[in-house]
Each structure stands twice: as C-alpha cells, then as structure tokens.
C-alpha cells in the first residue's frame, strides 16, 4: 500500500515544488581577541536578498542567486545556485552586535566576542 502511495506522488500537482539547488559557499574563518570573522564567497547574490540569521546558537547564511541566461548556452562550466550554509557558534558571541556586509560578492560577517570571554589584563597592585 505504502509503495503505491509513493509512486502516485510522482507527478502529483499537489506535491511541493522541488527545492532550488543550493550550494555551500566557500568560507574563511578568522579569530582575534575581539571577534570572529567569517568571509564567504557568494558571487551573484544581491545585497538586499542576503539573509544572515542567528538562532539557537546557529548562524545561518542564505542568499538566493538571481540568474537569467541571456540566450542559449554555448559552453557551461557552472550552474548558478542559491547559497546556504550554517555554523554552530561557540558560546560567548555577542549576538546583538553581529554585523554583515557584502562587497564584490564577498560576505563579511563579524561576530564580536562578549566581554565575558574577551581576554583581559589584570593589573597587579603592589602592596
């Protein structure tokens, strides 16, 4: 019974549309004493469509890619796809101060550390 059910679903107009192809963008991750920094290559993503989202300790970046072929393809080495990637962040990231900017197809996300985890020099007082 179940098998029949599955087979029927093929071509069923009520079935959800297939998801668009998504790729995980290449990233560099850096850290200094004040913050983490993520650089992600998202060529073709428009700034107002990039979505950087932080919830339950996970940072998710999503960016749809608009693309219309100007004509028939003569040669194709890549298929433009949407971008999607998510990271589990360590504790101690100040979520309220996360910033993202997009320049020349490179998304730059700054994740400031909260004061609690930032290294601190403790002055030693003489007696």
């Amino acid at each position, binding site marked *: 019974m179940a098998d029949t059910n599955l087979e029927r679903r093929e071509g069923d107009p009520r079935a959800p549309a297939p998801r668009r192809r998504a790729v995980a963008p290449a990233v560099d991750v*850096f850290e200094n004493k004040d913050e983490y920094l993520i650089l992600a290559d998202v060529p073709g993503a428009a700034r107002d469509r990039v979505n950087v989202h932080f919830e339950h300790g996970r940072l998710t970046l999503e960016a749809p890619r608009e693309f219309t072929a100007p*004509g028939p393809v003569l040669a194709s080495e890549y298929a433009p796809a949407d971008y999607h990637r998510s990271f589990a962040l360590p504790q101690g990231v100040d979520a309220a101060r996360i910033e993202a900017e997009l320049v020349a197809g490179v998304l730059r996300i700054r994740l400031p550390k909260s004061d609690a985890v930032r290294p601190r020099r403790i002055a030693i007082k003489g007696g």
Partner: protein
Amino acid sequence: MLRRWDDFDDTYALLNSFRRQVDRFVQDFETGVPAHGEGGPRLNLFDAGAALVLTADVPGMGEKDLNIDVTQDVFTLSGERKADAPEGYAPHRRERGRYRFSRSFSLPVRVDLERTTATVKDGVLTVTLPKAAEARPRQIAVRGA
C-alpha cells in the same frame, strides 16, 4: 569555552565537510574544471543573438584585478585575487582560494572588439562580445514568385 574551531562546528562538521567534498567532486567531474585553484574561475558562454555573453564568478575581484584580451578568435581572461586575510587574525579555516589565473579559449565566431564591454557586479564578471557583422544572425526574406 571555545578552544578550537572544530568545537564550533560540532555535530554537522563531518557531515557537511563530506557533503562539500562530494559536491565538489561531482561538479569537477561534470565540468572537468576544478572549482578553485590553478584553473581560475569557471566560465559560462551564451549566444545572445547579436552578441556572445560570457559570465564568470570572480568574488573579491574588481575591474582592476581582471584583464581581458582578445586576439583574433582567442579570448583570454586573466587576473589575480589578492589575499584579503585581515591583519592580526588567526585563521581557523581557509576554503577560499587565493590565486592568479589565466584562461584562454577560442570563440566560436568573429567578434567586434571595438564594441566589447565588460562589467563586474556582485562578484560576477559579464563580458558582452558583439558578433562581427558577417557572423550575426540574419533574416532572409523569402519572396514569392
């Protein structure tokens, strides 16, 4: 408390890394061109009727970092992506390529060099190569007898 970046990516790190590798392998296999490294950016070439349109993903590169050279029918795209690693940061993960590249291929038709234009927007290079007059599609009217 975080010690290493590995702690960051906890549960799905291995799975994601494996998926990425498989994705890349499949893509490289399909196209015969590696996504990063020596080969340079991947290209797509379209026939837009009166012009050829070439697109390439060049994230982090601007007009100054790219050179286009057309000699007869041979198109060459070269450039360099400069390292944009910030000063004073320790790297945890490096996936984005830093490279210098040069790619050449022969164009299927003659193009008009004078009117060739190239733009870079959101990390995507678009080169429009108008076809030479003799290579442009032409409508031939059929006359009745």
